[in-house]
């Protein structure tokens, strides 16, 4: 018995540790990068996002991994009391969530980059709350939705909605917090009851999807006897891609709802409502851009439809281009378009600005997510892998690429200064040229990511060697890009410092 429990506990650690390590890496990297002279900006938000998402994901995956791996039946058939099984899962999750919580707490306490998250109950909302919700709500919602992705999303969204409603009705923070803790305790107790009665239902249970709530049979809009028609594959593909993005739309819908609640509340009493449009919009933008890229290919593979889809007689490159185009369109529309529209209709009190850098950021997150999705087996895994991989890329960029870029700048400066002097380029033109160069570098990166994603999408090969080869290509592109960026920086510096600058 003890051996079985030890093996089971090790299995739980083995299943959750990679995701926990990824989120720890993201929190630490974002904190460290945020403390550098140029670092503030999005880094504190990235650290908090990793903490919030990490807690929810660990809680959801504790049980959700059994749905994803289709091992729930095997688990429950083990000759071990279900209470022991859940106890092990809870203990392992509590240890990992606890460590993540301590790390985030320490980062906020020690670092000076989180003033916003320390003020106005920020610690409760962004640090304590997610940890409690991850341990109580996430496992319960995962079982109710029969999927880790829906469990994780709703365990973040429902407390957020509750907080907004409390805010709208003027409930003071202390009371709202006590209610939340009470609900979490009830959810924790309900988790034990639901797990002890958990059924393994064939078919529907095996499908992670967004949630069974969204997969219920709906009345057919068409007559079931309507004959099938040939042609129109593009419309079919677009419809399917939009449906695969359901969870992205759900997250954006919750953002829309939050905005509406805040807007209504502000009209009633502008002073009483705590608003954080900047944080909310930032979280929303990053989550949408990541989900829009991470879901489509990975969810298709998880549903078991990927090979069937690829073998339909339309070239896999066309299918992938439609998938990528839809992901990018959804990401831009929801992450940039919707907040911009809302801000235009009902302006937020705090400073919200929109610029082309946000567009570049969304496109980079989405294309990166698409690439990760092309080699992942579930949408949640792809989304969870995205954050640490982006953090690792930023760290690589900050340490290696910036050094190379700086070196290239120093080396290129004399030659570029001579060239600029000879051509008589104006500082405006140099800036324009540099900006165009940076945009082209970004476009090149998206193209490389999409091209590598296509290679994974059309292949059933899941061995590590192609991935290592692809990451090498990305590193080579990064190094070449750093050198080009350094040269462009040299051009701008040369023109600005030259006496002929106009």
């Amino acid at each position, binding site marked *: 018995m003890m051996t079985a429990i030890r093996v089971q506990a090790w299995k739980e650690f083995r299943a959750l540790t990679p995701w926990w390590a990824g989120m720890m890496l993201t929190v630490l990297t974002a904190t460290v990068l945020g403390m550098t002279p140029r670092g503030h900006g999005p880094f504190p938000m990235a650290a908090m996002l990793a903490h919030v998402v990490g807690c929810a994901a660990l809680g959801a995956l504790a049980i959700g991994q059994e749905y994803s791996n289709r091992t729930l039946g095997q688990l429950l058939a083990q000759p071990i009391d279900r209470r022991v099984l859940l106890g092990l899962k809870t203990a392992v999750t509590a240890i990992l969530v606890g460590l993540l919580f301590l790390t985030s707490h320490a980062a906020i306490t020690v670092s000076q980059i989180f003033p916003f998250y320390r003020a106005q109950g920020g610690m409760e909302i962004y640090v304590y709350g997610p940890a409690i919700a991850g341990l109580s709500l996430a496992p319960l919602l995962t079982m109710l939705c029969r999927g880790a992705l829906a469990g994780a999303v709703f365990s973040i969204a429902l407390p957020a909605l509750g907080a907004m409603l409390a805010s709208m009705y003027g409930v003071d923070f202390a009371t709202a917090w006590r209610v939340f803790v009470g609900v979490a305790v009830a959810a924790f107790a309900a988790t034990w009851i639901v797990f002890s009665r958990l059924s393994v239902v064939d078919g529907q249970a095996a499908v992670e999807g967004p949630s069974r709530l969204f997969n219920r049979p709906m009345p057919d809009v068409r007559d079931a006897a309507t004959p099938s028609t040939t042609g129109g594959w593009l419309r079919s593909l677009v419809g399917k891609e939009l449906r695969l993005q359901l969870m992205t739309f759900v997250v954006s819908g919750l953002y829309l709802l939050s905005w509406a609640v805040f807007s209504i509340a502000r009209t009633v009493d502008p002073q009483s409502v705590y608003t954080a449009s900047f944080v909310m919009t930032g979280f929303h933008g990053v989550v949408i851009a990541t989900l829009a890229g991470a879901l489509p290919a990975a969810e298709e593979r998880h549903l078991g439809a990927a090979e069937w889809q690829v*073998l339909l007689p*339309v070239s896999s490159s066309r299918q992938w281009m439609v998938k990528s185009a839809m992901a990018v369109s959804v990401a831009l529309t929801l992450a940039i378009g919707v907040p911009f529209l809302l801000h235009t209709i009902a302006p937020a009190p705090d400073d919200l600005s929109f610029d082309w850098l946000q567009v570049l950021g969304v496109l980079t997150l989405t294309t990166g997510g698409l690439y990760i999705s092309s080699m992942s087996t579930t949408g949640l895994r792809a989304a969870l892998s995205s954050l640490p991989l982006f953090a690792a890329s930023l760290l690589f960029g900050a340490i290696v690429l910036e050094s190379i870029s700086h070196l290239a700048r120093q080396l290129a400066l004399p030659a570029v200064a001579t060239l600029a002097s000879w051509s008589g380029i104006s500082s405006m033109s140099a800036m324009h040229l540099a900006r165009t160069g940076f945009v082209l570098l970004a476009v090149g990166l998206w193209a490389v990511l999409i091209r590598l994603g296509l290679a994974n999408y059309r292949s059933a090969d899941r061995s590590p060697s192609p991935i290592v080869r692809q990451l090498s290509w990305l590193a080579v592109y990064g190094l070449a890009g750093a050198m080009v960026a350094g040269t462009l920086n040299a051009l701008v510096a040369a023109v600005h410092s030259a006496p002929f600058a106009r």
Partner: protein
Amino acid sequence: MSQQTPAIEIDNLVRRYGRTDAVNGLSLRVQPGRCYGFFGRNGAGKTTTIKCLLNLLRPTDGSVRVFGLDPTENEVAVKSRLAYVPDHVGFYPWMTVRDTISYAASFRHHWNHETERALLDRFRLTPSQKTSHLSKGQRTQLALITAICPDPDLLVLDEPTSGLDPIVRREFIQTVIGAYQEGGPGKRTVFVSTHLISEFEGLIDEFTIIDQGREVLTMTADDARERYRKIYVRFSTAPRISAAGSEDPASLDLTGAKVIRQRDRELEVLVNGNASDVIGRLDAHSPEAVETEALSLEEIFVTTLQSTAVPA
């Protein structure tokens, strides 16, 4: 394209995963209009070969051609002429059976509505039912409908009957696959990888047995039944089988045969292409009875892959 262009042509196919050779120098040809069996134990390299054939995996070495075309360079042309039914098939859970069929049809230039209706009736699938509520067997049936309705020239089946109940399995194999081939005699090809060899017995024209990524045996089913035979013989007294190299005229010389059962006076041996020779030697010992019968494909498969194969 000439009639003689093979539906499938695999030459020295090699596919490695790291240091493991999943397929190692496999070659085979499937002529159009044939039902070709592709047999092997678990992990023999069957699914890897099929994935190379479908351009889902790039061969490490060697070449694969479908209807004379390279599936990598002529992806759409190849995919337009074939359909695939895998062992584990999944569909989009929000779609109904009808939606799934319509979705698959939208990618095709041709769709046989008559076949669609007939198969829906035969399999008793409800068009308005969500695919997420289908059992494994029903999902396989739906995959078969989406595979057969475009009337493809090549149907690739990878363990298609696993998960089907015996009644549906028999119907699937004998009626559906048979009817599909009869719909285009000499033109429609079936390439089937299966463990349930006995169920495909009557349909298989030719087969290849592979083991550890290598071809072990390729033969037409008729030739195989002719070559591989079981001889049952009964003597008046218990026979004595001679050891290899023995020249004792009183003992039985069973060189070139494999004894599978010996009980008192009765003996059962397997022979591979030398039945008349072995029977001649047995007759020399005046048996009371000698009977021969052809081996089934499944018995040939087991015999071939057993560690001590029947000597030729």
